[in-house]
């Protein structure tokens, strides 16, 4: 031990946050689930590449159909589906992002430092998000470029859809991480996938004019508008006139859910007892 103690300064929360978020990102990147998310992004990109590179024509019900024309119609659906697939994949890495350090006990030595649980929770979320958004965002950017280069899709709706994807990923990751503190990781993963599907189906049904009640209606009405926001973001591709007020409300609800889900995560970590 050195005779003179090294100079130590008070650790500012922002510095602790940076250090722990970088560690969380590297941890996620090095984990198998991180590789799985990168694999999902690559798979999605290959899928988009195949779908956008159709050539020639085929006959359907006796009529010749040009695949390129068909793709103009299904392009937004393709992009939306890929976004939701990557969103579910982000739930995969998030289900592990906090549950693993808790399960293996490595969280204890971080929290034995002058680090608040709020900072720790937000740093883990940020590190996990950085991986999920960079993998998914990269795949979506490439998909947008393919749609633009091969079929003339405008890039602006893709940019809006990318922002909605990032916001939705923040919500899904925060809720998945909070849930993973209470239930096994595999249950978290399936719950997240089911939840995303329910919300998107509810959103789609609502936009198509279907009416329903009970908890499903409440989930659609008050839950995070993952499907609706994504559809509105891509509306520039389908020349749809939207009510600006309605769009603003949906985007506000999405933003509100980012705050709410992060708050739920922080609350869960603050209440956590490390036995």
């Amino acid at each position, binding site marked *: 031990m050195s005779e003179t103690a090294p100079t130590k300064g008070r650790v500012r929360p922002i510095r602790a946050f940076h*250090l722990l978020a970088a560690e969380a990102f590297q941890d996620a990147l090095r984990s198998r689930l991180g590789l799985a998310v990168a694999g999902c992004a690559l798979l999605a990109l290959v899928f988009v590449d195949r779908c956008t590179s159709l050539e020639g024509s085929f006959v359907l019900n006796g009529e010749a159909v040009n695949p390129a024309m068909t793709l103009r119609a299904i392009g937004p659906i393709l992009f939306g589906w890929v976004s939701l697939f990557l969103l579910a994949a982000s739930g995969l890495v998030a289900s592990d992002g906090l549950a693993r350090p808790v399960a293996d006990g*490595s969280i204890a030595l971080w929290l034995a430092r002058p680090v608040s649980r709020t900072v720790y929770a937000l740093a883990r979320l940020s590190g996990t998000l950085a991986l999920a958004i960079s993998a998914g965002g990269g795949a979506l950017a490439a998909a947008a470029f393919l749609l633009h280069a091969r079929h003339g899709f405008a890039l602006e709706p893709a940019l809006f859809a990318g922002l909605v994807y990032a916001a939705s990923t923040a919500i899904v990751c925060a809720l998945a991480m909070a849930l993973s503190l209470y239930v096994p990781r595999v249950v978290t993963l399936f719950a997240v996938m089911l939840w995303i599907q329910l919300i998107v189906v509810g959103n789609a049904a609502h936009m198509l004019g279907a009416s329903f009640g009970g908890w499903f209606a409440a989930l659609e009405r008050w839950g995070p508008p993952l499907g609706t926001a994504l559809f509105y973001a891509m509306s520039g591709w389908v020349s749809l006139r939207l009510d600006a007020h309605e769009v603003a409300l949906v985007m506000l609800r999405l933003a509100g859910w980012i705050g709410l889900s992060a708050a739920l995560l922080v609350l869960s970590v603050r209440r956590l007892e490390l036995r």
Partner: protein
Amino acid sequence: MQTLYARAPMIAFELASVSKLYSGRRALDRVNLAVPIGTAVGLLGPNGAGKTTALRLLLGFVRPSTGGVRVRGLPPSNPRSREGLGYVPERPAFAPRMTIRELLRLHGGLIGLDGDALEHEMQARLVETGLGDRAHERVGGLSKGLLQRVAFAQALLGDPELLLLDEPTSGLDPLGVRDARDWILAARQRGRTLLVSSHVLTEVERTCDHVVILHEGRIVASGPLAEVLLAGESLEDAYVRIVRGGAGASPQSTDVSAPEGAA
């Protein structure tokens, strides 16, 4: 409140009438303890006596069911209570994909070290704990004994004022045990406050000047070693005598060795 010194000027940490229940099971029962700065305390007791729970309360890992906990005068929920605190857990667990150097760099950053001071301190701890040649190895591939050395290296970073050690020699070979003893004694000589939870009574006898004995969640004896031990008695004999005689002791009877006038 039971203090280990009659007139303690500054308290490093205290448990004030602390009880802790886990799913209805009482792990600690109205424990009162105040440890002055610079004291080396051995925390003894049978399995399930509440030793690890006491450490976890001080670190803020768990909340007391009743009573209050203060570390450096602050509740453990305040991160500043852990400034200048080093902790060696019973079973050290680290992010397995980090190298030892990455781990120490991050821990150093979290206690406010950076730049040359961090590099110097990191290197000093690596050498001190015998990990200098292994700094680039991933933590996940290390043996239990080496993990314990890593745990010491991170705990000793920055020469903390308070060291909480939970079974610090667990998993160490005889050379490692001797090294650990030297690190603990060096910290004690520098005037650091130590709380050493251990089953290895000979190590506690060598490294601590005070003991607290827990049994069934209650303090059944505490005070300077010389006062807890009867004439010619070893710590092991005293431990057996106290624990066997202390079962079911009331909290009021725990002040078996407090010096006259203890606060």
